[in-house]
């Protein structure tokens, strides 16, 4: 029962925070709220017997990535969303796009929920299978990472390299400027 309560609390928090993220005009607040949401998710991960992921979530996501965002927000010094009037000639450029997208998002939720409800084998308790110790073991995670996921792991290094080079290429100041 507490599990359920905790689950609802955390999920509620995550959803609420996320909803606030996209309901914010100020990106600074958005980042902060997103960190909160990530925190809630980390809680859910713990509940799902994935403590390592939860830690990584806090450290990598909330700690690293979000800080990156913050840096940029501050660097650009453009806290407010650009509310200037823009060209209203085209229907798709008006607020309609937002509303339309939101509606589609709603539709997506409905679709997914409906699919989930019709799927019969997902209603089992999430922890019905597997050994908690195995699942939550960092050792297992590490072993998996360097055996089955060895190649993916190596590939990730290339990914990071690309991101690095790319970020440098794009963001550095022009020489001589």
């Amino acid at each position: 029962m507490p599990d359920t309560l905790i689950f609802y609390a955390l999920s509620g928090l995550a959803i609420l925070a996320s909803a606030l993220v996209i309901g914010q005009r100020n990106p600074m607040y958005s980042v902060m709220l997103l960190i909160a949401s990530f925190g809630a998710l980390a809680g859910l991960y713990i509940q799902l017997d994935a403590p390592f992921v939860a830690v990584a979530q806090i450290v990598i996501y909330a700690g690293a990535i979000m800080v990156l965002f913050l840096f940029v927000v501050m660097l650009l010094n453009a806290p407010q969303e650009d509310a200037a009037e823009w060209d209203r000639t085209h229907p798709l450029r008006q607020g309609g796009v937002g509303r339309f997208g939101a509606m589609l998002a709603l539709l997506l939720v409905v679709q997914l929920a409906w699919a989930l409800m019709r799927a019969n084998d997902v209603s089992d308790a999430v922890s019905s299978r597997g050994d908690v110790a195995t699942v939550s073991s960092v050792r297992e995670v590490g072993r998996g990472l360097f055996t089955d996921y060895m190649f993916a792991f190596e590939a990730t290094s290339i990914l990071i390299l690309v991101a690095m080079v790319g970020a440098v290429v794009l963001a550095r100041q022009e020489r001589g400027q």
Partner: protein
Amino acid sequence: MFNSSFDAVVPMLCVTLAALAAMGAEAFRARDEKMPIGGLGIIGLVGAGVACALLWNRNTSSFGVIVADNFGLFVTMVLVIVGILTIMFSSQVLEVDNLPRGEYYALLLFGIAGMMMMATANDLLVVFISLEILSLAVYVLTGIRRDDPRSTEAAFKYFLLGAFSSAFFLYGIAFTYGLTGSTRLDRIGAFLAAQSMSDNPLILVALGLLLVGFAFKISAVPFHMWTPDAYEGAPAIVTGFMSTGVKAAAFAAFARVFLSAFEPFSQQWVPVIWVLAAATMILGTVVGVAQSNLKRMLAYSSIAHGGYLLVGLVAANQIGKAAILFYLLAYAITNLAAFGVIAMLASSNDENEELRDYKGLWHTHPALAAMMTVCLLSLGGLPPTVGFVGKWYIFSAAVSSGYYGLAVIGMLTSVVSVFFYLRVVVMMYMSEREGPEPVRPRIARMGMVALTLSVILIFYLGILPTRVLDYAAESIATIF
């Protein structure tokens, strides 16, 4: 370390090493030192090509997630060719636009490595990661002309939509994983074949989301919106590269996932892809008609070509699978060469990519005009070019599976597409220029060599396609 399980990654390893070498060379090069960094890339690519040749028919796999089957190797070969041609075309572009050489080549090569990975990946996660590798590389290449707002805008649009769509793709992987317990394609395939899951809506959701991810990368309608903008904004040669390399890799993975792992669900995905193919062919060609910017026009044309490739996927018979491979090759060479011409004619301050800029090109650059014409005719699918053989192959697949409707749509749209290809020819050959000649750079020899090579290939494969068709047929014999 060099056991058999390592062989399959050798091609991409070659390329990756070349990329690293390019980075290193750039890092250690003196400020004004000229260095043949592109040469490094070509060496790496040739190495990859040789590795492919050696791996041919050996059907090895590494780490369980990279399989060097003939299918993957064929696409890898296509990517090698794309890479070599791109590098050859690039030298002039880099010179003229003063782009950061080392980073450019490194990203290009990393991108190719990612593509190779994607083409040979046997694991959805690896597909995703490689997709990200190549995407990130291409995003950056798109925006590499930082001083050009259009270039940056293109990169931004491509990036934003790419990220958006990859989230869907990832979501699809998540469902697939959740339902089948694995991300390995062979296991998924085995699982789906064993369980009757067609009544499970979740697997269909997974299917749909994966479809979206791939459809985005191959710019199928309605996931194509980024394409014209990105293609137009990117430097021409990058456009050439991404319109061929990315598409080849994405299609390889698409075909692999849908024709092996999700083969049991073909009843479910074929109608959707049918619609996508039809819509893509129609929209690509129709909107292409209205374009006045050559790059943008070719962007729509490449959308349409994606549609033709989808037809091969719909047909999903032996011919269709081989046809996809052959068509990828045909399209890659042709399209790349066409963009190569555009790239070579672009000067630093004006890209000269409006159709009217090509007026009278015949008189100033007869060889370029002629080769451009060959490329356009090949894109239009006229014999005796490779484009014709490709189209013929694709549509015979469709007909063999009884998709006459799709074949007819494809044929008719290809007629319409000929219209806009011919408009370029009209400009080059049949219109006289009023006003001053646009400023055009000196045409580099390297680019001409690449172009000549492409044209020779276009004709060679158009007239004597047997050998390559056989390779394509062999490629699909080992899987599926």
